[in-house]
């Protein structure tokens, strides 16, 4: 094992340096690599679940990059809340094609469109006949419209507009899947890492975009060879993320503009609620991002801004665009407890095993603690200039202190990239892949220079 290094991440990377890094990374020679899908089945809470991941692997196994700890570098990426593996594909291709990592991009249970090899979801999330797009957790098993009610929610209209939800009816298979998927997330993603990153060969570095962040946070202690979390625009553990959103009144903060809200009721999404996304879910990012990039005058070109949002949405409807992860990502304990209890009743568990299942579910939102537990590995946080939910203030005031208070506290560092938005691969002037190349360059430097190598206690 290489000795711990003096390499440290810069607290801030200027736009000029980001542009320079982008040019350098994109000019790196292309390494040959293969891409393939791996669909497999796991069992969790008495149900079968089809899990699909996409694998990007250097054509020459001997050419896989090696980190500061002397082990091959594996990257495990998870997409954001409404998507599938395709969202993080640009990132995966860069890591493998330019830096020689083996990269696996996971897809949340239920998000892979199993009936078609293209994985393109047909139609839209909301159909003219009042039905909705629903997850496919198992090949051949479909949620029928009699299994849910469509509900409109204007409870947090300032952030989300009016949300459309499919609420699973008690007793339906949809209901039971909605109660059990957290365990399938754990089992499926752990199995994906086991299949592709043998413990004796690989150190794995996790990255979860946005909603994927609390999932990789949860997984980082459950996958033995996870050596670190590359937390760029990666929401943290649910218990920390919930506090993060409360800090910004769920509206976040942009640049030098004041927070518009500082209080928010805790989220209370029930476990049986599937959120159907629309253009609104682009608008809630594009508005704050436009404020950061263009300033208030973005409102003077509102028709154009709206056109951009609607056009972007129209291009995205083949992606899943539904979501049900709030109980974990926002630490909604009553919903996690209810989900565990519903699963326990379905499985006929006794009181002790029910209690254990409840603890398992609640545990998805916070670091595992105890003497025999793998500690939280180092987190290298990275945030873009114009991200509503990932401001430097919320990291300084909420996220970093909560990590520092963990037992034992993991090694952490934060870099602010002075360009880019929440989706770090969004192109902007001089940055054809956004800030992704600069972020990836930093990750690679951190790994090969041993920043993630933690001395044994």
């Amino acid at each position, binding site marked *: 094992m290489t000795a711990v290094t003096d390499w440290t991440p810069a607290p801030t990377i200027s736009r000029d340096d980001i542009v320079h890094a982008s040019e350098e990374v994109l000019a790196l020679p292309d390494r040959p690599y293969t891409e393939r899908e791996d669909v497999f089945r796991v069992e969790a809470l008495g149900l079968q679940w089809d899990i699909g991941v996409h694998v990007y692997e250097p054509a020459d196994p001997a050419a896989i990059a090696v980190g500061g700890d002397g082990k091959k570098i594996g990257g495990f990426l998870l997409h954001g809340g409404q998507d599938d593996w395709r969202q993080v594909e640009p990132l995966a291709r860069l890591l493998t094609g330019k830096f020689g990592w083996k990269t696996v991009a996971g897809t949340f249970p239920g998000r892979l469109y199993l009936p078609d090899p293209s994985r393109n979801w047909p139609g839209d999330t909301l159909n003219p006949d009042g039905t909705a797009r629903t997850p496919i957790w198992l090949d051949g098993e479909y949620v029928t419209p009699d299994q849910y009610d469509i509900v409109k929610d204007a409870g947090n*209209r*300032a*952030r*989300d*507009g*009016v949300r459309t939800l499919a609420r699973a009816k008690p007793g339906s298979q949809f209901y039971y899947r909605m109660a059990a998927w957290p365990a399938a997330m754990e089992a499926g993603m752990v199995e994906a890492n086991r299949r592709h990153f043998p413990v004796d060969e690989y150190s794995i570095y996790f990255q979860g975009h946005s909603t994927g962040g609390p999932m990789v946070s949860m997984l980082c202690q459950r996958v033995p060879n996870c050596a670190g979390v590359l937390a760029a625009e990666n929401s943290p553990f649910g218990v920390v993320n919930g506090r993060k959103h409360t800090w910004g009144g769920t*509206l*976040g903060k*942009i640049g030098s*503009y*004041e927070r*518009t809200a500082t209080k928010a009721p805790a989220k209370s999404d029930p476990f049986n609620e599937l959120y159907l996304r629309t*253009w*609104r*879910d682009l*608008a*809630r990012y*594009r*508005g*704050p991002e*436009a*404020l950061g990039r263009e*300033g*208030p*005058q*973005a*409102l*003077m*070109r*509102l*028709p*154009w*801004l*709206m*056109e951009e*949002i609607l056009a972007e949405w129209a291009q995205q409807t083949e992606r899943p665009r539904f979501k049900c992860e709030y109980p974990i990502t926002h630490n909604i304990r009553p919903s996690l407890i209810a989900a565990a209890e519903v699963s326990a009743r379905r499985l006929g568990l006794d009181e002790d095993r029910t209690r254990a299942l409840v603890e398992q579910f609640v545990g998805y939102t916070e670091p595992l603690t105890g003497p025999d537990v793998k500690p939280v590995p180092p987190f290298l946080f990275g945030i873009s200039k114009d991200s*509503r939910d990932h401001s430097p203030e919320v990291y300084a005031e909420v996220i970093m202190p909560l990590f520092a208070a963990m037992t034992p506290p993991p090694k952490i560092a934060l870099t602010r990239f002075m360009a880019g938005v929440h989706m770090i691969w969004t192109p902007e002037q001089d940055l054809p892949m956004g800030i992704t190349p600069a972020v990836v360059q930093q990750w690679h430097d951190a790994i090969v220079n041993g920043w993630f190598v933690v001395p044994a206690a």
Partner: protein
Amino acid sequence: MTAVEEISRERCVAASAAVLARAERATREHEDVFQVHAVGLDWTIGVRVYEPDEIAVGADGRRIGAFFLHGGQDDWRQMEPWARTMARRFGWKVVVGTFPGRLYLSDPSRNWPGDTINADGTVRTPIWLDGETITPDQYQVRHDRSMRMRYGTRTVVHARPGSRFYDRMAGWPLAMEAGMAHAMARHFPSSEYSIYVQGHSTGGPMVCMLSQRVPNVQGILAAENSPFGYISRRQHAWSGSLGKVEGYERIRTTAHDRHDPFYELYLRSWRDLARYRGPEALGTEGPSALMRLPWLMEEIFDEWHEQLVRPLFKCEYVITHAVEESLCAAANATADRLGLGDAARAELVDHYLGLTRELRGADVKPVPNVLFGISRNSRDHSRDVYEEVIMPMFARMDAPPRIALQHFQAGVHTVWRAEPELPLGIMPAMSLEWDRAIKDGYFTS
């Protein structure tokens, strides 16, 4: 009344409460549809009349008549809240005109069916004469992104040369003049009435044009009322057509002249609400409006959906922005159709160009006195542009009218838009100022 007067929000609220507390007078309402002949074509014109049993009298001892015109995409219904306020609360007789082609003559409800742009690629088109419809073979649909900062992508149709649509697009400016002048003659006899005109937004250059052509127009009540076309063009050039919101700098200061051809009909969409609601949100909420963009967009889409029964098409830029090359082309196209000789053709071209500016000369009725009123959060009607562009240009007229500006510290371009404590926006406060100005003799000096 001083040249520029700030009217506080508190005063707007108090005025609104006072006006809305007034007893309502009995008022008759009816539609008047008639036909006029202009440039060799018949045109069906419709106006809406609001007539109280007892009509108020101004400082000149004559009955107060008001002629209102709507904004660029609408019909008489847009001005109805204001017309009813003036008739019922102040005792004015009010006539609300509708631009030629905008009245949905096919249905007594006047509700336009469907949307402006249909799924089959056809579009909503004007009905200038009862029973005459524009067929899709008479136009081509185009998309224009040349003014995307202000409008987003515009959907327009170009009338094909030789079609009736083309002839109407070339001829409507004179139908506007003839139809509106005739409407005032029918309802406001010169011997009885002094008329005060108000044109919301695009209606403004039309009432400015009419103010010298109707003998008993006594004043212009220019509330969020764009001025004569040539001044309006300068008004827009001042901000590169992007306007300005109070408290924020202009984004652009270089002119962005319009070149809309006369044969182009603009089909409106939700974008035309967004181009106002964005700047208005900036003015009323500040930059944080962008933090609630999904909600703001929902409000715009909902509002648009409610408006679909209105005409929502427009072709008046040639007058309102003094697009002179297009007016010349329209006049020449009309002259070609009518087979006019050189002298008559030149006269027609002069006539068209004259629609954009005040008439000048010894025998001409001067521009009447103007009382400008602007709201706090109107992108195109800032105090700055009035002081730097509009008022100096009125002052430079050969026979300059008396002018004054009232700057209301509340409200938006659509002045009757509700906001907290102002259920009809700043419209009641403006109405009170108008009534006071007429009765105190502002327009008779």
